[in-house]
Every structure is written in C-alpha cells, then in structure tokens.
C-alpha cells in the first residue's frame, strides 16, 4: 500500500517537474519571440522550513525558518561555517527537500530543481567536456529555445567572454569560469538566481571586479538574487537586505536593511555608518562562531 502511494506521489512529482520544464521552455520561447520581457523576478517564501539529515529528524541544520524575499530583491545570507547557509540555498533551489515546512517561488511549491531558479556554485560547476558556448547554451537547448547558440552568445557578450565561446573551460581563469557560470545561469532567464559563495575561490582583485560585473548585470537583468558569502564587505556592497544566521541549529539571527546604499565602493570606505554596520555584523558572526566553538561536547566528537 505504502509502495503504491509512493509510486503515485513520485509520478505526480515527475508530472509537476515536466509541467514546470514545459512552462519554462514556453516562457523562453516567448522571450525569444519578443512576446515577453526577459526578466520576471519572483517572490520567494519559506514557511517554517526545517532541515535535518539525521534519520530520526533530530539535530536540525536549519530550524523553523520563516522568510519572504520580494521580487527583484538582492538578499545575502551571512554566518559562521556550518550554520546552514548552503543547505538553505539548496532547499530554495529544490535540490534538498525540507524535513518540515514549505518553500514557494511565487505560488509554486518547490519540490525539485526548476528552471525558474538557477544556481551558481563557488567552483567546479561547469561542464568540462563542453565548450564555453555549449555550457551557456545547455539551458536554452534543454528548454527548446529556437536558437540556443545565439542565446548563449548574447549572454557571453554580456559577461565579456564571446571571444572564448569555443574554448574549453579548463583553459579559462577562475574569474572567467565564474563569469561563464553566471552567463549559463542567466541564459534561461530565471526568476531567482542563487549564488553560493560564487567569488569565494577568487583572488581579491578578481573578486572586486566580479562584484562590479554582477552589479552591472543586475542593472540589465534583475532577477531575485539570493547570495551566500562569508565576506561582510561583499554583502554590504551587493545587498538590499542581509540576514545574519545563527548556528546550531541554523536560523535567522538578525535582518539588516542595506537598501543598496553601499553600492558605490569608493564613497563608502570612509563612511561612518558603513564602518559601524560592518563592525556590528562582524560581532554578530563572531558570537555565533564562538557558540559553535565552545559547545560542551565539541572536544569529544
């Protein structure tokens, strides 16, 4: 009986995923035909989301999360290592199902990865066996775009890499690879862009350039962006809202409105409010890090 119910549920889930892929493909074809504007940012809402990897559902990684992210917002999650930032991103992207609670993009319940919501990882996220243009054209081709190569070239132009369209990813530098990953994620015109420490593996100079590039891209394409980073300056520079996360179990400790007021790097360096906010966030993260560090059974593990 249980097996039959599970089969039915799996069938329903597969149908839902197929329907969403069809909708995304239709949307992409409409964009290509000029019937629809390229960007349609979505609202993301999390209701009482908890995630536990233990079989008995104890030791939650994320617990009781309530959150609404508005369409077009740039939201950043900051927090100590192991506080569940990446898990949260995977839950929103449909790669992990929450143990309890629901995630919705607009009104659609997230039960599996969907083309409405694409993700950029820190590294190793390109298909090494495909040329750069094929990497970017992967999404449009999967969704039945009439000209996937043309679409890929358009996005490669946007990130300034059209000259490297026929190169293999292995020949590119770390910064260039991340630009390809961003172009690939944007090529299906997602409503939500998830970014898991996308510039974490880059050197300081490249990182700074990539942050500026991302801000420029946001001006032309404006999906809802959910960003994870360890870098407070990066969070203040890019975000509309910052969520500082608490650890063990992961949850929201504090919400900080940055409102994009720090987007002009050169102006904010000597700005007192910037420095105070930066110090405040660092103190919050330090508190959480110490909490993890000083757990009584830490040494026994």
């Amino acid at each position, binding site marked *: 009986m249980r097996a039959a119910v599970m089969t039915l549920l799996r069938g329903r889930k597969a149908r839902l995923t*197929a329907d969403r*892929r069809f909708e*995304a*493909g239709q949307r992409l074809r409409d964009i290509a035909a000029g019937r629809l504007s390229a960007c349609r940012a979505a609202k993301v809402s999390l209701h009482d989301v908890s995630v536990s990897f233990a079989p008995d559902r104890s030791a939650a990684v994320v617990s009781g999360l309530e959150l609404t992210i508005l369409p077009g917002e740039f939201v950043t999650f900051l927090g100590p290592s192991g506080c569940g930032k990446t898990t949260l991103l*995977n839950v929103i*992207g*449909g*790669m992990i199902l929450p143990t309890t609670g629901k995630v919705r993009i607009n009104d659609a319940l997230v039960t*599996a*990865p*969907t*083309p409405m*919501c*694409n*993700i950029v*990882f820190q590294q*190793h*996220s390109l*298909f*090494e*066996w*495909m040329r750069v243009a094929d990497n970017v054209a*992967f*999404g449009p081709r*999967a*969704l039945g775009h009439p000209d996937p190569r043309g679409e890929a070239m358009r996005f490669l132009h946007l990130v300034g890499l059209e000259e490297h369209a026929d190169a*293999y990813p*292995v*020949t590119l530098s770390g910064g260039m690879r991340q630009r390809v990953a961003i172009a*690939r*994620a944007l090529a*299906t015109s997602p409503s939500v862009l998830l970014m898991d420490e996308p510039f974490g593996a880059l050197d300081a100079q490249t990182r700074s350039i990539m942050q500026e590039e991302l801000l420029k891209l946001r001006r032309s394409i404006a999906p809802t962006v959910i960003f994870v980073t360890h870098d407070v300056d990066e969070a203040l520079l890019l975000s509309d809202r910052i969520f500082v996360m608490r650890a063990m179990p992961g949850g929201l400790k504090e919400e900080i409105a940055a409102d994009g007021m720090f987007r002009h790097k050169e102006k904010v360096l000597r700005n007192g409010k910037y420095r105070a906010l930066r110090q405040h966030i660092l103190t919050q993260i330090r508190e959480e890090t110490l909490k993890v560090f000083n757990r009584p059974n830490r040494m026994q593990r």
Partner: protein
Amino acid sequence: MGVDLTLDGEVIDPAPFAPARGSCGHAARQWLRAFRPGRLALRLSALGFCVVLWQLASSLRVDLGIVSFRYVPAPTEVAIAAWNLLQSPKLIAHIVNSLSRVFSGFGAAALIGVCLGVLIGRLRWLEDSLLPPLEVLRPIPGVAWIPLAILMFPSSELSMIFITFIGALFPILLNTIHGVEAIDRRLIAASRSLGAGRWAVFAEVVLPGALPSVITGLTIGMGTSWFCLVTAEMIAGQYGIGYYTWESYTLQNYADIVVGMLFIGAFGMTSSALVKLFGHALMPWRRVQERRA
C-alpha cells in the same frame, strides 16, 4: 599598446628574435618538443639495459639461491625461436585466433560492463542487488573458471571467449561505477535546474562525466583480457598464442615460451594503446587539459 624593445637606449626590431612561424626550424622545434627525444632515448636505454642484464644472467647461469637463471633461455636463443615462429605458416592462425578471442571477450565485457556500470552507478536499488554477487565473483581468477566454462558453454571457442570476458569485465565494470558515482552532484543539480530532463542529464552530464574512468577501465580491461589468454587457450586444441605458449611449456621448449610471452605482451600493449587513443579521440577536453598540465 605594445612595449618597445630597447638596447642601450636604441629601439630594436624584435622580429628577428621571434620564432619564425611556418619555417622549417620552427616546425622541427615543435616536433622535437612534442616528441621529447631525451625521454624516448632514456626509455629505450632502460629497455636495452634490461635485455643486456637478462643476457648476462642467462649465459652466466646466475643462481641467487631464491631465483635461478640456470634454465632461463638467453635473449639470443629467444630471438632464434622468434625468427622460426615468424617463418612458420601457423603464426597467422595463432594470431588471428587469439585476436578474435580477446576482442570478442573484451567487446562483450565492454558492452555489458559499461551498461551495467552506468546503471549500478545511477540506481541505488540495482547497486544493492547486483554489487554483492559481483563482488563475490570478482576475486575468482580466470583459471578457476575453466571447469565451469567447459561445462557451461557448448563449444570450447565460447568457453575461451568467456574466460577473456571475465578477465576484462570487472575492471571495466568497477571503473564505470566509480566514474558515475564520482560525478559532482552539483553538476547534476545544475543541469536539472537548467531544465534538463532525465535523458539529457544522463547523455550530456553523466556519460561524458564518467568517460575518463570508463576509458581507464577499458584500457585495464584490455590488458587483463590478454592476461587471461593463456588460461583461456589451455582449453584450445590447435591454435592461439596462449595455446602456443602452453604447448611450448608441456614440450619443454623454453625459448618458445618466452616468445609466446613476448607476443602476448606486445599485442596487449598495442591494443591497450589503441583503446587509449580511442579515449583521446572521444575526450578532446582532456587533451587540452593534458597539454596545459
């Protein structure tokens, strides 16, 4: 945009110092760089040194207590035996029979090993149900399969192909499983969120992602297939390089045994190199990666 090259304050023309693209000298330098004659010379010298050591050990009948070269034929005797075999009308029959057995066994192992490996790597329930019996069968050597192979198959030819098949199957299967399981989950997640269906994920992400491991398995499998040839051709009645080696042993023609061994080694090495070349052709991105390493 460019920076002037100066010598004692005078701007000089860099053209004569730049490599002349398209010239014979440039082509020769490129060829030499690719060929790496130094390394090749070292390898050939090492091979020559081993043959000289072998010649000395055999002709001086060296006896080290644990290992003795008293009855080991010298390279000169082996060369004479090889020359006799090369002139023998049976040589072609030996080679053709062995090649057909090895390639039939290897082909079947490649087909079954890769398909099964991909499925086991992707489906947990199949891994749980198939991997335990396969793990039990894996350590059984080819020679232990001979009685069962004779009982199971209607002809000795099929029994021999089965032995070479068994030799090749496990390296191919296990490498394929490892290749599929080692694919970064983030790549599969990314492809699914980009809108790829099950088939696209399988064909465009899983298969090419596992290909380097599959090719490694095929290369090792080709080697072990030749490795099992003598065992397989112990069943044979007339022809095959393995049969020739085994027959030489029973007739105590020691030089012929070594000739048979060298033939198997040479054919095994060549066919493994062919599989590697095939792999290189299938994976152009790896060539780029190797060039940059």
